[in-house]
């Protein structure tokens, strides 16, 4: 099941290399082709065309050798590999990925420019000093092969009100009261149902302004559920805040121990909870300070 047989067809811009690495480059090219990856090669370092050529590919691959390909302090020559490295580096500010391979044993220890390269790594730069070109290409393919996750019919909601089947009645009551104050969309979690809640929530919650996890009897369920939702939707950097609302008839703060520091919550009487939610909603949407 987690064995991913899907191989996305990728295109790699295979940058030129300095003279001593031609054989290795040719080997890598053959490996890429056999891995089902299309290889785009520069005909000549043709000036303005280079950037377009790279953007035609999904990523670029640069093999490092002993000749400096970057040395901003005292450049010797602008080799084609250096120009292509810099061009790709410029593109990584967007979504373009560049794979920088430092095949072990080629660059001698005294060649400290490798430190410059490593210090220059950004989000879209993948740097590897793995020995085997096959392993490197395998990693490249795995990284470029992320299958787009299936999108559900997610919609924009004000409040997504989530509860467990065990608390259906209690939750309906709170939800109805809340609906008088704000538009509410309910989601009932039932372990026996066929729905993949994990996927659904990951797609839906970011489109809502607020996610409420309400619980009453389901004290075993709510904290782990809130934890998983918090984690799956981005934690502290999530776009949609989570708010836990517990009916004080059964809920208490100790149940929320791992969450207290990271998620806002209320443990209150059922009738007060809708107001707490509304206040919190107004706060996060900027209606009140």
């Amino acid at each position, binding site marked *: *099941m*987690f064995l991913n047989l899907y191989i996305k067809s990728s295109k790699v811009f295979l940058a030129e290399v300095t003279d001593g690495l031609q054989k290795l480059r040719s080997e890598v090219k053959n490996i890429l082709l056999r891995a089902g990856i299309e290889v785009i090669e520069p005909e*000549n*370092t043709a*000036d303005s065309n280079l950037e377009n050529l790279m953007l035609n590919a999904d990523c670029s691959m640069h093999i490092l050798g002993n000749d400096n390909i970057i040395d901003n302090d*005292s450049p010797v*020559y*602008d*080799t*084609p590999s250096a*120009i292509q490295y810099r061009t790709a580096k410029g593109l990584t500010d967007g979504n373009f990925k560049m794979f920088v391979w430092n095949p072990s044993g080629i660059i001698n220890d005294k060649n*400290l420019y490798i*430190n410059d390269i*490593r*210090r*220059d*790594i*950004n*989000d879209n*730069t*993948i*740097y*590897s*000093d*793995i020995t085997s070109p096959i392993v490197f290409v395998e*990693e490249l393919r*795995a*990284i470029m092969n*992320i299958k787009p996750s299936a999108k559900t019919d997610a919609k924009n909601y004000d409040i997504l009100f989530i509860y*467990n*089947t*065990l608390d259906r009645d209690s939750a309906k009551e709170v939800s109805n009261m809340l609906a008088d104050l704000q538009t509410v969309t309910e989601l009932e*979690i*039932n*372990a*026996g*149902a*066929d729905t993949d*809640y*994990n996927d659904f929530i990951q797609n839906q919650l970011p489109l809502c302004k607020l996610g409420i996890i309400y619980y009453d009897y*389901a004290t*075993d*369920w709510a904290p*782990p*559920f809130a*934890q*998983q*939702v*918090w*984690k799956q939707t*981005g*934690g*502290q*950097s999530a776009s949609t805040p989570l708010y836990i609302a517990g009916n004080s008839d059964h809920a208490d703060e100790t149940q929320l*121990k*791992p969450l207290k*520091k*990271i*998620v*806002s919550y209320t443990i209150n009487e059922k009738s007060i909870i809708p107001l707490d939610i509304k206040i919190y909603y107004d706060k996060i949407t900027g209606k009140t300070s």
Partner: protein
Amino acid sequence: MQPEICPYPGLRPFTEEESIFFKGRDMHIRHIIKLLEENKMAFITGASGDGKSSMVYAGVLPNIRAGFCKAKYNSWLIADFKPEKNPFLSLCESISEQLEISKEKTQAELKYGFSSLAKLYKESPFYTDGEQGKNLLIIADQFEEVFTNLENFSNGKPSDESYITINLLLETIRLSVIEKLPIYVIFTMRSDFISQCTVFKNLPEYIAYSQFFVPQLKRNEIRQVIEEPAKLAGGSISPRLTEIIINNLNSGFDQLPVLQHALNMLWKMADNGAVEIDLIHLAQIAGISSDALSTEDRAKFNIWFAELPEYQQKYYENPSLDNILNAHAGILYESAYDYFMENVPWAEKNITPEESKEIVETVFKSLTKTDNKRQVRNRCTINEITGIINKPHITNATVCGVINIFRTPENTLLQPFSVPGRLDTQYLSGDTVLDVTHEALIRNWKLLAEWATEEESFLKDYHDFASQMNRWLSHDREEQYLLSSGTYSYFLNWYIANTPNPYRFLKYDNTKNSYRQKLKLAQSQYENCQDFIELSDQAIKTRERIKRRKLMTVLIGLAVFTAALIVLSAWALNEQKSAHYAAEYAQQQADSALVQKEKALRAQEIAELANKNARLQKIEAQIKASEAKNERDKARNAQLLADRRRREADSLKDIAELNLQDAEFQKAVAEMAKHDAEEQARVARQATDSATMLYSVAMSNAMAMKAKSEYGDNRLNLRIAYTAYNLNRRNNVTQNDAELFDAMIYAMEINNMIKPLKTTTETIAAFTVDELGRIIVITQKGQIFAYSYANKKTKEVFRISDFVSRDLIHSAIFLTPEIVIYSTTDKETFCINFKDKNRSRTKLSVQGDFIKSAMITPDKRYICAAYLNGRIAILDADDPESRSIANYNTKTSIADIYCYGKSDVYILTQNAALLRWNFSNNTTKEIFRQTSMNAYAMTAIDSKRLAICFSKGDIEFLDLKTGTKESDMLGAHNRIERIVYDENTKYLAMASLGNRISVLNIKRRNAKPFVVDDFMLHNFPIKNIGFNDEGTMFVLTEENVIRYFDLDINSYAQELADEKVTELTRQEYGLILGKNFSSK
């Protein structure tokens, strides 16, 4: 809301609470949940340290509780257990707690195995028809303990308790599947024990039914493990740090614990995630060399490092990801004493720093053991450890206090962990079981690995010792089974070095006995050891005493015996001597008689021999007389025969001499005839060759001309040129190579086979070819490009864009392949030197007009720059910016210059005067002046002769040494505007008016020059000409392209052959040249 908790747990597994930070295994968790939904069980196997327990407790379990596993009920009972030393009791305990049934009842029910567990659940209040029930999840964690603990598995056989536990779990799974009961079972087990599972009936089948082998994390999953917990906790890790960690992470054993430990340390080093975690933090935890840091960070690091105590600095000598754990544990080991003194108020401070280290060593030695040649952890109580230390002043409190530094929430290398402010978690009770948090510590803390090896060695010796001792014990302590002297000495040393005590023996008691029983046995074992050693010592001493006594007795006996022997020997010797003398005298008498007898016999033999010899000599003399007579008769006959033969030979010799004279005469006649014939044949052949050659030249010339005609089929031109070439080659003709060159390049040009070189699209100001054959160009904007040239193709080698300026270049001249001098359109002159790293552009001091010609002196010291307006300046080649060294003004337009010797400059003016200016003494001499002519270009041939070009193609050669002149047209018929000579190939190229280049090889001056005409240059004026060592001529035209021409027609012919161009057929030949011409 900034969380205070660290998102990385370090060496310990993730807890369920920390599931929010457990990342990288999402796919695997979903897969395991799917297995549970479908099969009711998941058998999770994997290597040590690959996070099986974390995946279950921080991954699967929270997801199940959160409702992400389809099940009958919405709530869950989680019965988890580790087999430990009795899996059945552990299971019962866990089940009884969850089902809220007494332990006794649970045990009593479950001991029957099979459906007992399912029955117990079905009868519990948690199995109902409504929604209020609870699913039951049983987790058998670290299932390998069924095999690793000798109580559970010994001599290849499982204990009854192990067997019944597995029977219960497997049957429960079976019934859950059949009856759709909401019971689920998860096993986690190290994969190296999988083969041993076959000893349990049905277990292999169930493993195969629903196994999950934990995969190694892929690169992007490791990236999630590193980056996402920090993000979730509101922190961040720099991408470069992530990449470096991924690259430095070893695959295989301990990958994840080492990683998690490093991340935990990094988080703390980065002020608990308050700042972005970066390379400097990795360097601060001894994970990377400070050399990898930026200058700024390195400076910060150095300041920080200088403040570390010396004992800590040594852990930074070999930084690596694996070293982080080693450094961390090592530093704790060395600072345990200080921690104890400052942070443990409840323990007496009566130990030395050395004793503190001994305590730590004993604790960790106790907590490790060797199992199947692998060093693994070994749980021990505080009491046991204090007992092993066995020093009256070191109490449980001292042990707890010293090792507490390893148990704090910041360190967590030993468990249970202490909680700040909770004394009960710091001062542990004597029966608290200590354990190393992860075996990765044993493998990565170098000191602990050494200790573990020492402990292994102790154990080996202990087993040897115990086996000898047990033999002694089993033989009722008989003396003969005590240690022998050598073995005693070995074990005595071992005993003194290790000072074993009952607690140390207790550690290796794997029986099922109670602790009290074990301790009693260990005590008894210890006493036996002491007895064994002591009695062995006594026995050895007794044996030695007896041995000494026996030896003494033997020595005395030997002495008496020896004395008696000496007396007897003296008497016997005397008697022996007397007998010996008598015998000797008798022998002498006998010998004398024998000698006399032998002498008599000898005299008789000599007399008989002399008589015999005399008879023989008489017979020999008679035989020799008879032989001499026979020889005399033979000699007389031979002389008669020889006289007759001599007479016959004389007559034969006369006849032979006559014959020889005749033969010699005949031979002379024949040779003359042969010579005549050969001469005639040679003349005939020469005439034929000459005719053939002339015919061939004429034919190929005709064809070369035809190759330049139009036929409507351009390929036909190629074939005609190719046929002409082959005709010449077959007849070894080279006289008309120039015509063939012309024909071939024309035919190839119209077939689009000669293309300009692919270089920059910028406008090229000038180019040159360096010693490596690379074409170096400078563009009008000042960019410099270098292209390698091979197989008629270029490839960019480097480019330099530093000197791009807004002012366009008007004229540029390469002085060397690395030095170029140029004037801009606003008449400023610059010199670029890009020879090495310190490349530069300098503005020349002499300005005011366009550069016309420039040259560097042969000694490379000076640059001579000639301007269109007639001014000439000499500049220091190393410092062209400074003022000119010498100046000269011709006051008329300059055509060209040439630097000769140290300080001579030949100046050719456009009004055809050649001057020699010596800039060192500033003297000028007019060498000659042509009237009614103009001069345009000049070059030197092999630095010996100047070739000076005048109007209408006249060339004057001036020998620079002798000053003699010589005129020649060299095949040019028009004004030569540019002349270039290449010393390597000896090619002289003359570009004349009308865009035509004549190329002459000076080595073959009589050969016709090759011509590249305006058609080949697309009617564009010529800007620059250059050659490489292979004899390829490069021409830059105003079209802004560089064209190439191989000056070897064979290469064109080869290209045509490669293009499968065929020769003309007989019919085509006739049609093109006329029917009368033979194609042969």
